[in-house]
């Protein structure tokens, strides 16, 4: 099953299971979504459950909050994560804070699905990885799956969670295939997955970078370094313990992300690993991330900006060398 179909299946199952769940977004209805993720859902569930919206992200996302406060469980789609700029107030000031400001009077079971990442020459406003912005916002959960099985299991958990969840898909993963367990499949939020075991180096990563790290690990294995890969799956809540346990075993740590280097997810991971595993580290941890510049269009330029397998290999070799 593809990553796209896995997400579609999760949405269909949750729409089927819970009357209160409904989808809203731009072109999610008959058209089936800009990334074709919601195909067939409009026909199956009708326009009351699958709602096409005007190009009004602030009203879409703010509308989910209104719907939540009166008992529904909306799942909104923001076509590209780059568009969150126009609804940031609703996400960061309203949705993430409403429960806290009210002293716990309400639960906020809503999901904002979106997709990010580069690799398709979509240039500076359609290729970003902005997850770090939301990791920096208390009150939001941030879920970012790398496989079809996780995409399905995590999305179903996100829809059932009583907190606001930003669910970030990756545009280059939609056609990736993988095994997805039959029947009810839930992956709990806040539980990392050890993708590959090894004793020479820990690499923590997520989303599309998991695949690149796996390729790098093959190369490193041939050179005699066994890499342990931790797929974080959710950035908030963050499963530190799985990461720390791995570092205590390997003594070396590399964070790999597609977002920008400065103040990125890797910066946070390295700070936590350094603080908690200091006595186990054989050397300073390292990060691989996108270069600190807007993402360019031309394939050669984009490639030079986003992390590549070669960048991971270079950083890993320096760590174990």
């Amino acid at each position: 099953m593809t990553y796209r179909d896995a997400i579609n299946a999760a949405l269909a199952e949750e729409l089927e299971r819970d009357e209160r769940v409904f989808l809203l977004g731009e072109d999610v209805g008959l058209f089936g979504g800009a990334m074709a993720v919601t195909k067939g859902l409009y026909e199956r569930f009708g326009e009351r459950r699958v709602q096409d919206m005007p190009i009004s992200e602030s009203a879409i996302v703010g509308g989910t909050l209104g719907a939540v406060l009166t008992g529904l469980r909306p799942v909104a789609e923001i076509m590209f994560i780059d568009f969150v700029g126009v609804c940031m107030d609703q996400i960061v000031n309203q949705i993430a804070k409403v429960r806290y400001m009210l002293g716990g009077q309400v639960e906020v079971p809503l999901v904002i699905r979106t997709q990010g990442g580069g690799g398709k020459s979509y240039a500076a406003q359609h290729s970003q990885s902005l997850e770090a912005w939301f990791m920096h916002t208390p009150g939001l959960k941030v879920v970012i799956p790398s496989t079809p099985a996780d995409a399905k299991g995590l999305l179903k958990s996100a829809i059932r969670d009583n907190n606001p969840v930003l669910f970030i898909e990756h545009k280059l993963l939609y056609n990736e295939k993988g095994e997805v367990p039959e029947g009810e499949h839930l992956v709990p939020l806040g539980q990392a997955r050890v993708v590959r075991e090894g004793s020479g180096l820990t690499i923590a990563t997520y989303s599309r970078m998991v695949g690149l790290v796996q390729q790098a690990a093959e190369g490193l294995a041939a050179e005699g370094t066994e890499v342990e890969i931790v797929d974080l799956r959710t950035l908030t809540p963050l499963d530190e313990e799985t990461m720390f346990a791995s570092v205590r075993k390997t003594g070396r740590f590399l964070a790999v992300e597609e977002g920008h280097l400065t103040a990125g997810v890797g910066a946070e991971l390295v700070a936590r690993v350094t603080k908690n595993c200091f006595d186990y580290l054989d050397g300073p941890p390292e990060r691989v991330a996108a270069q600190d510049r807007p993402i360019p269009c031309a394939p050669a330029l984009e490639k030079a900006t986003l992390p590549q397998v070669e960048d991971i290999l270079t950083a890993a070799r320096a760590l174990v060398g």
Partner: protein
Amino acid sequence: MAYDTQFLLGLYRQMVLIRQFEERVKFLFLEGVMPGTIHQYQGQEAVAVGVCSALEAQDVITSTHRPHGHALAKGLSIESLMGELFGKVTGCCHGKGGSMHVGDLEKGMVPAIAIVGGGVPIATGIGLSFKLRQEPRVAVCFMGDGATNEGAFHEAVNMGAIWSLPVVYVIENNRYSASTPICQTARVERLTERAHAYGIPGVTVDGNDVLTVHEAAQVAVERARSGAGPTLLEAMTYRITGHSRRDPCLYQPEEERKQALAEEPIGRYGAWLLAEGTAEQAALDQARAEVDAEIEEAVRAAQAAPAPAPEAALEDVFA
């Protein structure tokens, strides 16, 4: 329209409650016993009371950074508001919201939203929810004149319009966006002219006349409840206090202020009640004495209530 005396006196009492509450709170702030900042409602009482008196208990309102009047008009208790303003555990948000975020879902008030225009999409979503669930409930979105220049206003009112959602968008035009007169930031004379752009009715009324506001709100609320869609209702009023705690309001011209004070809603309505023979001066005085006593009791209770334990700061981030 004929109203019964109880109802008419009730409106008076509600407006006086808001005015006296705000005046008491102003002095408590000046004494330095309340934390944070404060945006007060003196002069605009007829809007909150006129609109909320047209609602049913199950209807829901969203509010702004100037929410005390809306909260009292929607039925939040004086104690829970005063407690919140003092940052005490007895407050409606257990001290976490403060003046700018008071609310109580049980009473149909979403926590006040202190980002200008931020409540318009949320009220629209509430209306969407009522429509999807086929519940005969109405959402009212209170906003100031300044909010109509925010992008979120346009997005959300348009969305409410295209789906005929049960929402009433209430603009409290107090003529100033903080210190800037609205005539400097909008070319239209009436902000309801913007309603034409969304294909919905726009009604501008004297927002200092509580019965006029009530009647206009009733029409809009009925329209919303019947499934005919939203209304943009503009209530022309005046803020006879500063924008916030530190604002001495020097930008309001003296003549204009004098005029506004002569037209402030409580004096006008009280005089009307007397002239109509609906009430004696003694009844009006008694209403005021009663609310003053209730407010004093709430102040005493709030001052005596415990502050939240520091550990409580960690609670309620996630469910």
